[in-house]
């Protein structure tokens, strides 16, 4: 027995068949954990080595179910408890809407568990180097030879006896791998030290920068767009007398197209003249505005049978009646701006030119119901 401790003893075989035949003999000797290294996967070798079924499948199942439950719980909490909003007439707790996210999160949890669990937990990556990787046989193992290893389980491991067992089983070559002076795998101390080091480095850097900029205001890392010579909304400012950054518009400010017109009585407005020409474009504007704003009460042909009000027994003005056939344009304009009887003001809905276009359109509707003989004349284009 050598004084040097051994990590494992490698026995090399020339063919996969020889390896497979040696496995039961070596396992029967019970000298240590039996492990195989081959250049490619060999059918049935996991059964021959008596390897336990990988726990990865179970881990993936558990995490997948957990992912589905997490997504469901989170979505339920968001949409039914914390901030319930009815969307599309559905109940806030509609499980149907949760399914796609649940599916995604299930896949996310499951794949991360499969990938990281396999690499980090089961294969214990990353590691500093495996004794087999620095063995003399590694070239052969990754090319055309098949190795069986008896790994030391405890202090009583006898490398010479293990080598004899392998030779008896038919190994053509035997190599004793010395134990590394420290574990090749990441220990929890190492992981804690690394993570702790990163944390301390971050804390020192952050606190250091904070202190430096506080004590030495000259030091200003990253001043990009930090100071801008403008006033922010809802913020105080010393520029104006009232100390506000936002100022109300000057009294009497008028938005474009919304000049206050027809401000007097209706009779006073009777003399107003429609400034718009009777063109196709103006009629198109008038038609659109009429259908949007007037049709629901006055009806599509202006006869007071609107698509909305007629169902409720209301009686809006019949624009086809004699009263409105004789109505001057200006009085109609005044009614649009100020509203009349039950009709509200439409000054905020229609610009000045839209109002006048609507009046042209109403005139066209009236003429369409009371056509004259000369309207039938074909007008040259």
């Amino acid at each position: 027995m050598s004084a040097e401790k051994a990590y494992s003893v490698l026995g090399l075989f020339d063919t996969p068949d020889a390896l497979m035949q040696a496995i039961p003999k070596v396992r029967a000797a019970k000298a240590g954990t039996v492990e195989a290294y081959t250049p490619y996967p060999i059918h049935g070798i996991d059964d021959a080595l008596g390897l336990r079924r990988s726990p990865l499948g179970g881990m993936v199942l558990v995490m997948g179910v957990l992912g589905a439950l997490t997504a469901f719980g989170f979505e339920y909490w968001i949409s039914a408890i914390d901030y319930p909003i009815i969307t599309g007439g559905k109940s806030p707790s509609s499980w149907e809407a949760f399914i796609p996210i649940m599916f995604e999160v299930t896949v996310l949890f499951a794949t991360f568990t499969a990938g990281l669990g396999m690499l980090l937990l089961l294969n214990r990556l990353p590691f500093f180097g495996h004794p087999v990787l620095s063995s003399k046989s590694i070239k052969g193992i990754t090319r055309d030879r098949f190795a069986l290893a008896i790994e030391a389980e405890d202090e009583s491991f006898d490398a010479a006896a293990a080598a004899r067992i392998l030779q008896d089983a038919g190994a053509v070559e035997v190599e004793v791998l010395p134990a590394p002076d420290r574990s090749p795998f990441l220990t929890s101390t190492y992981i804690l030290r690394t993570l702790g080091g990163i944390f301390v480095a971050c804390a020192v850097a952050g606190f250091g920068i904070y202190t430096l900029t506080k004590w030495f205001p000259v030091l200003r890392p990253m001043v990009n767009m930090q100071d801008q010579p403008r006033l922010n909304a809802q913020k105080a400012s010393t520029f104006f007398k009232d100390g506000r950054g936002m100022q109300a518009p000057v009294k009497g400010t008028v938005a474009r197209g919304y000049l206050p017109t027809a401000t007097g009585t209706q009779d006073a407005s009777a003399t107003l003249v429609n400034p718009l020409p009777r063109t196709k474009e103006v009629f198109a504007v008038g038609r659109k505005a009429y259908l949007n704003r007037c049709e629901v009460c006055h009806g599509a042909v202006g006869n007071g049978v609107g698509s909305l009000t007629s169902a409720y027994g209301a009686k809006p003005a019949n624009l086809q009646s004699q009263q409105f056939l004789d109505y001057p344009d200006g009085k109609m304009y005044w009614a649009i701006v100020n509203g009349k009887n039950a009709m509200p003001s439409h000054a905020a809905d229609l610009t000045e030119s839209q109002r006048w276009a609507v009046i042209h359109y109403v005139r066209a509707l009236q003429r369409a119901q009371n056509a004259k003989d000369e309207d039938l004349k074909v007008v040259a284009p």
Partner: protein
Amino acid sequence: MSQPKASPLIYGAVALGAVGVIATYLAAGPQRFWANWVMWFVLVFTMGLGALFIAALEHLVNAKWSVPIRRIPERIATLLLPAIPIGLIALGALPVLYPGTRPEAAHHPILAGKAFWLSIPFFSVRTLIAFALVLVGLTVLVGGSLKQDTTRDPAFNIRARKFAPGFMAIFALVITVVAFDWVSGLTPEWYSDIFGVYIFAGAFLSGLAATALSVLYLQGQDRLSGVRGDHLYNLGGFLFAFTVFWSYIGFAQYMLMWYANMPDEVIYYKVRLAGMWRYITIALGSMHFILPFFVLVTRDAKQDPRRLRRVAFLMLAAHVLDIYWLIFPILGGKPLLGWPELSFALFFVGGILLWLRAAMEKGEDMPVGDPFLREGLEFRL
């Protein structure tokens, strides 16, 4: 060879069922008779077509593992032969069950536009073309394979490999036409583009389940020596994958309609979520997805004959329930399940069993003329 001791029982069941089938027409009315008949036509046809798809899939992807069991889906695919006369008889259901063929359809705003497509002559022509295409596939794939048993001519493999891609297009066309015409044609105001894929998922599952059951049945008679857990694992894996696929398609179809909430679309689900149908819908989701998913998720379940047999039976039952759930709501609010349905089940299940028992004697149990048989037998996971 085992003794066909169960046969008298099956013959008795078929005879009893036949009496019930005729009595249904006389006593329960033509509507109920035709609904049952169309349902069993779709079931027999989809099982045969699903099995033919499995046989074609092997040639398409050049699979080796399935060569030893390929004869089984080929034998099940011969169910298409009785399915054709059953389908021809089912054409009698057109004036009774299918609203698109009635004279009122000419005045229906939606059906009038599709009047020619839904008319009895064109409907029948489409079905006949589908049957002819299926017969071509059956002759080339199954007939050629059976002939290879005696000729041992590898030219069949080359021919089948060239034919398989074209057959996949034919298959997609046939199953879509059958799904659209025979199943979704019952509710012609409702349409779903994915419906053909939905029926395909069910068809493939029922073909797979029948294949798995027949493989296990023949294994029980020691007629498939060399077929091991590794082959069963692949069958189980396919079953597992396609239960998920079926639910994916089914839920995708449901969710889009549920979200859009268009009256002409959701009515399909509204009917199936009202009253007793609600419980049948829940049972369908559990039987077709949740239960088989968790039963099949482990590796052992796919390799263990006993558990695989149970799941395969479950999938067949779920497929029957699926087609029942698609067809029977058109007969009115309550799910009908009485002596007419039981007699039809006796008649058709018994008939399918008799046909398959006879079909299991067709040709050799394995495609002995296939040059890849040895490679397939050596398949390891």
